């Protein structure tokens, strides 16, 4: 726990980055880059539900609604349940509506493999 800001020490989650795998880059810079990428992709999934994800200095994610309600979420895996509660939506990667939107944005014919 940080004595100044109350931030918790970073706890690794399997999604955060690949340690000890000989990745091209490692260390704090890679951690931040990984967080930025996670935030960008999470926002692409959640923005249609009026939700915004931000990085809280690589310690956690901040999930906010358009009305200003915010919650701190410790790791990516917990973003989805918080998003469902705040955004009153379903976070399901098999949802046909979500898949159709992602495919449309990627310029892929809907339903194409």
């Amino acid at each position, binding site marked *: 726990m940080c004595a100044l800001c109350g931030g918790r020490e970073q706890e690794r989650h399997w999604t955060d980055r690949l340690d000890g795998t*000989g990745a091209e880059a490692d260390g704090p810079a890679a951690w931040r880059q990984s967080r930025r990428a996670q935030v960008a992709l999470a926002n692409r999934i959640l923005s249609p539900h009026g939700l915004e994800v931000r990085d809280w200095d690589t310690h956690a994610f901040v999930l906010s609604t358009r009305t200003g309600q915010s919650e701190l979420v410790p790791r990516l895996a917990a973003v989805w349940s918080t998003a469902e509660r705040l955004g009153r939506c379903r976070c399901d990667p098999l949802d046909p509506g979500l898949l159709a939107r*992602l495919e449309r944005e990627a*310029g892929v014919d809907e339903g194409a493999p």
Partner: protein
Amino acid sequence: MIPVHLITGFLGSGKTTLLQRALASPAFANTAVVVNEFGEVALDHLLLQRVDADTVVLPTGCVCCTLRSDLGAALRELFDKRERGQVPPFDRLVLETTGLADPAPILFTLTADPVLRHHFRLGSVVTTIDAVNGAQHLVRHLESVKQVAVADRMVLTKTDLVDRASVEGLRATVSRYNPTAPLFETPDASLALDRLFVAETFEAPPRGDAGGGADASDRHGRDITAVSLIVDAPLDWTAFGMWLTMLLHAHGDDVLRVKGILQIRGVPTPVVIHGIHHLVHPPTSLPRWPTADHRSRLVLIVRSLPAPIIERSLRAFLRLGSPERPAA
């Protein structure tokens, strides 16, 4: 990190006999053993510890997120004795579960315990299936199917007590539920035990390059299928993590097992991933690819989830991380 190997299987399927045989082998001299209960087959081993079935259900109510406090305490005690020199410095631990135990809470205990996760890691899940009664167990008991589904290695036991056609039928059945786990038989004097208890496991599905699709179906109405997915291009780790966490969030109860060997963009070595229900073990890397095929292979053993949609979903998410994807 000390690998923790699990022996699971239905009641009377030969778990203790297999363990007994392993412990008699000189190669298993530095093995600690934790058993849920002392069965009829006596285990005479220096490093033997019993745990009681105390469990703590976390507020989520999720079955797989049940902390085995008894197991955690037993492992911590063993590790403490090892560090103080009160027991030999074991480099492998074998845990024999009770017949109906769900392995998911064991994985959760290893992953969530702040002490254990720095010293222990999940090794092989070895499932014993009794050739005499195994087929009936698979029909009547979902627990038996789950034990097959989560296996890294499957051992058909008592194959000398039934005819060959029955053994082959059972082999076909368990292979449909779990196409990735190598299948062994006992009694077999030549069975190499070191092939059962290995620290790192991943075998590609033997049915070849099916791409996406269901490899199995359960004719007893449980709709359990093995979905094999192959991706040619290197994966974006962020997009893959996004997809899998979301899938396990929404459908973790129906994802019995995830196993994969992945080619990750920017990572020169293959990355192995294992999961049971909502839980994913920290990924590890192999020093080299096991075959000349360097494509990512992912196998999900799922219940009542359509394979074509799973594949479509994975590809849609991977496009999000594709370097050439159009701007949102």
